[in-house]
């Protein structure tokens, strides 16, 4: 059964739809992420699911029950807020036990469950502390425990990692994933950070302008984005416009500004002569011996790899080259110097190993 089923949910602020008829389902035990840029309506959606905001239209089902008209306190959802909002005048244990106390769980069961929840988030023995005595990561865990301990049908997380620095954020991502598995709770995670969403989630929904434009497992969204927006929001992509010049089995060949590109497509839906957009990931661009030729216009050092922007007769492609960190930049290597850094103005030959057709998401 679906832990959550949302049907045509809508919310309008001052005439502008913030959430525009979205529908989605989340399975029991799934880690589902809702991602999109700021203002795309993801937090509004989450607040409607929590019951903190009343939708204008649509339906919210939790474990098969219609909860659309129920207030937050009568819903089997619990939320981890972006600012965490731990109760500052209560101890860690009082914070975590608050929901249990409100639903009538008495001591000693409450104390036991609070202890178990704190142990689950690796904070055993922290019950007597005040939230203000904890570090950012520890507060994060308390907020998670406070929500999880109530055994919600679905746990709603509103960008709880946004305020952490990068290293801590990556630790917490792994922790979230582990805690989600260990507690077997359904997670709905809202974020604008596609990297963390992709690394944690079973499935991801990409939102834009109040609509869900693409749903699927992270790998599928990354390799086969359906729209221009999804292609460029999830990782880097070069988008090239062009015309279909012929069909080859399931693929089409598109004449772009950079040259002809063979792209994956459901060939039946495109005819020769159609104007289309092709998305190319930087890692699908190979260096040397390809059909395309261009001039390096910009070079960016990225650590273990180097990224060059290449102008191929007006169309810009991005190509990456791993750096051999063992060899210094100036030492020519055996195969003729491919370890040398890119140079602006240099002419390179490029091949494209994989490209996908994407559509414009505007309906």
């Amino acid at each position, binding site marked *: 059964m679906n832990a959550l089923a949302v049907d045509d949910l809508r919310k309008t602020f001052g005439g502008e739809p913030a959430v525009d008829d979205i529908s989605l389902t989340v399975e029991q035990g799934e880690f589902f992420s809702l991602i999109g840029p700021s203002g795309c309506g993801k937090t509004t959606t989450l607040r409607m699911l929590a019951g903190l905001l009343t939708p204008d239209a649509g339906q919210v089902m939790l474990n098969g029950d219609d909860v659309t008209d129920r207030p*937050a306190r009568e819903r089997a959802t619990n*939320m981890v807020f972006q*600012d965490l909002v731990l*109760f500052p005048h209560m101890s860690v244990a009082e914070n975590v036990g608050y929901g249990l106390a*409100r639903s009538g769980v008495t001591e000693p069961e409450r104390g036991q469950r609070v202890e178990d929840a704190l142990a689950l988030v690796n904070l055993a023995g922290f019950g007597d502390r005040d939230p203000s005595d904890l570090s950012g990561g520890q507060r994060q865990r308390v907020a998670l425990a406070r929500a999880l301990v109530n055994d919600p049908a679905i746990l709603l997380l509103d960008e709880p990692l946004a305020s952490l620095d990068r290293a801590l954020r990556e630790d917490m991502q792994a922790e979230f994933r582990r805690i989600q598995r260990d507690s077997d709770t359904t997670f709905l995670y809202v974020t604008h950070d596609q990297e963390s969403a992709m690394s944690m989630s079973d499935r991801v929904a990409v939102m834009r302008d109040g609509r869900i434009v693409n749903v699927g497992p992270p790998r599928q969204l990354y390799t086969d984005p359906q729209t221009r927006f999804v292609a460029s929001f999830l990782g880097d992509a070069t988008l090239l416009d062009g015309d279909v010049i012929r069909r080859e089995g399931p693929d089409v060949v598109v004449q772009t500004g950079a040259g002809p590109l063979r792209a994956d497509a459901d060939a039946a839906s495109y005819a020769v002569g159609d104007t289309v957009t092709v998305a190319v990931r930087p890692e699908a661009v190979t260096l040397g011996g390809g059909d395309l030729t261009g001039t390096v216009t910009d070079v960016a050092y990225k650590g273990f790899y180097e990224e060059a922007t290449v102008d191929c007769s007006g169309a810009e492609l991005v190509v990456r080259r791993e750096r051999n960190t063992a060899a210094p930049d100036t030492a020519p290597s055996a195969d003729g110097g491919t370890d040398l850094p890119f140079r602006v103005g240099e002419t390179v030959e490029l091949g494209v190993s994989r490209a996908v057709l994407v559509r414009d998401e505007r309906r």
Partner: protein
Amino acid sequence: MSVANTPGRLRDWLVAGSPLLLALALGVFPLLTLFVESIGPGLGGENYAEVLSPLYRGALLYSIGVGVGVTAVCLAVAYPITYWIAHRCPDRYRLIALVSVTLPLWLNYVVLNYAWVWILARGGVVNRILVGTGLLDSSLDLLYNNISMGIGFVYIYLPYVVLTMYVSMERLDYQLIEAARDLGASDVRVFLDIVLPRTLPGAAAATLIVYARIAGAFATPEILGSPGNVMIARLVVQAFRQYTNYGFAAALSFVFLLLVLGTLGLGALSPRVRRELRQW
């Protein structure tokens, strides 16, 4: 510590010390003279013995009772008002709402009391409306009792309580309320578990400001209160002006001050209040 004797250090002491000295002089000196007056003549303490006679004991207790009661009503009224202004009112109307609630602050205190005489009198606004609309056959006696005095007190002191409470209420993170609701708290629980503890410093500050002034008020009980219920201020004024018994008036004032401090201390005994006060 050779630095201590440099002229710069001395100047610092003077700069910091003179205002402090002035404040101490203004605050403590009159109190000191009053106290010396109260124990004279001849260090007898008869003044204090008289204060504790039943007549004065009654007035003192009544004043404290009025102070506690009216302060409680002010807080009870200010809570929903400030909650609404801080968390429910649309941003652009907030200032207007706050100003209109605190408008009485800018009018003369005595005038404010007489406004209620005009409203509650036999020929006043309320009676005219009640009789005029046929709800009542004849006018009611609404004035010169505890109710009319209470109304006057609340009307005059509510703005102070609202302004003080508003600061606390505005600092209360609304997300805490949402978090509590999300965890299953009813409205009553949200108030008891979140709103009350987070705004207790504001309530305590408001109490400090208005409680003693209400208990020791002179004009409102004189203008709106019952002639039979004597509050302490009238007795002090009588002792000063009618009987010119300064010693007794001073003793009365000191006992009252001790009572006020005592009741405030009683409030501070509550562990919850103490915990909040420590965060100041």
